[in-house]
């Protein structure tokens, strides 16, 4: 069994540093937003989380295609890991989105396209896990997982578009409105810097976690392999 690669340890270190810096930037570097006050700071992490969640979904879909074409089990581990991590990131995005909504409009939930789509993604992931759970044969589990990841990745943009059209034709006024249904605001240069920095930080956190999770998956498979060998 290979020991933890040097690169991964370095990446861990970088990730922690970046994260601490990002937190620092969010609280001390970025200016206080006029309308919403401290609550607005949620925004930086909220969008980054959602972005990374989507990234994870894309990685899973690509890994799915790779598995179907090559049959190499490592792609299945990549796909599963990506979806697991994406699940957590979307969850954080939804919670932070909820806090944002509370701060902006006084409600815990808005049916805006992005938040709703994120919630639907969570349901899709739950379905993915249930699907895998119901299959004993590892090859079939990987194949079906890949197919479902691909199918759902295609349907999610369509879902987003349909909710969007729904909203433009029938705009729903949430709470006290504010500047547009999604609560957008103008970003000063420092806000923009913080925002982009958060985005990059979270992408690196994603890569770090993904690497760890893939390693975990591979080790688990090796352990299973050894166990079967002793049985036979």
């Amino acid at each position, binding site marked *: 069994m290979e020991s933890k690669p040097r690169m991964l340890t370095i990446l861990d270190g970088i990730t922690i540093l970046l994260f601490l810096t990002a937190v620092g930037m969010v609280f001390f570097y970025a200016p206080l937003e006029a309308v919403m006050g401290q609550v607005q700071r949620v925004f930086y992490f909220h969008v980054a989380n959602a972005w990374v969640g989507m990234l994870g979904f894309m990685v899973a879909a690509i890994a799915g295609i790779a598995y*179907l074409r090559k049959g190499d089990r490592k792609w299945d581990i990549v796909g599963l890991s990506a979806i697991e991590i994406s699940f957590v990131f979307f969850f954080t995005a939804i919670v932070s989105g909820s806090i944002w909504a509370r701060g902006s409009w006084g409600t815990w939930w808005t049916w805006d396209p992005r938040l709703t789509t994120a919630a*639907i993604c969570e*349901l*899709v992931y*739950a*379905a993915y896990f*249930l*699907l895998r*759970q*119901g*299959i*004993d044969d590892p*090859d*079939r589990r990987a*194949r*079906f997982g*890949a*197919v*479902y990841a*691909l*199918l*759902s990745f*295609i*349907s999610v943009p*369509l*879902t987003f*578009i*349909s*909710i969007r*059209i*729904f909203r433009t*034709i029938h705009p729903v006024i949430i709470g006290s409105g504010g500047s547009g249904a999604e609560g957008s605001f103008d970003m000063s240069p420092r806000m923009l810097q913080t925002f982009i920095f958060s985005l990059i930080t979270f992408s690196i956190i994603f890569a770090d976690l993904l690497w760890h999770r893939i390693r975990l998956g591979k080790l688990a498979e090796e352990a299973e392999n050894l166990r079967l060998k002793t049985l036979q």
Partner: protein
Amino acid sequence: MEPISQAEKQLTRKSSAPGLGQFIRAVSAVIWKDLAAELRSRELLSAMLVFALLVILVFNFALELDAGTRAAVTAGVLWVTFAFAGTLGLNRSMAMEKDRGCLDGLLLAPVDRSAIYFGKAIGNLIFMLIVEAIVLPVYSVLYTVNLFNPGLLLIILLGSIGYVAVGTLLSSMAVQTRTRDVLLPVLLFPLVIPILIAAVKGSTGFLQGVDIADIRPWINLLLVYDVIFIAVAFMVFDYIVEE
């Protein structure tokens, strides 16, 4: 390559367009088989119909509405009904193949795998349309709403096509798992949300005489969804049935 035996030459047809002709023949054979079997047993249709009518009845009590509000929710009620009754049909259709090992029988035939998919999908579509054709008049009568609107029928057709395209794919997966029947709705509903949204908004639009320009986006969405998923199904079905 071995020379083809005499007997084989006699038995197999020589068709001028072997690929496509054989494909269409196989698809129609599968459809005919499903229809003939269903005609005998009537299990699938009766289950779907009874369920659909029950759901409509339950809605009547669950949502106690005046005539005006009812008109607004008609499309929603109808589509929820179709979606749930649809999963029954999809499950039964695939279970029939899996239980007696018939799926192997289909896979052994020298036809392209996608012929099996199209045969099953079109069969499922026919069953769904039959159920819808019965539910619509019943709903009309029970709630005094005129549902004979060509626009509405178009939406129902497009929506059903998309639903069945994805549903047949997913039911072929679900039937091969331990959790089978329970799993199909869980897998299916998140993926058909675009259809449900577009179909409900489109249906309501036609029922309330909304300007066609406003309904256009919904029709387009349904068309795009149908085309994309039928194309994807074509490519992906092999991986679902091959071992």
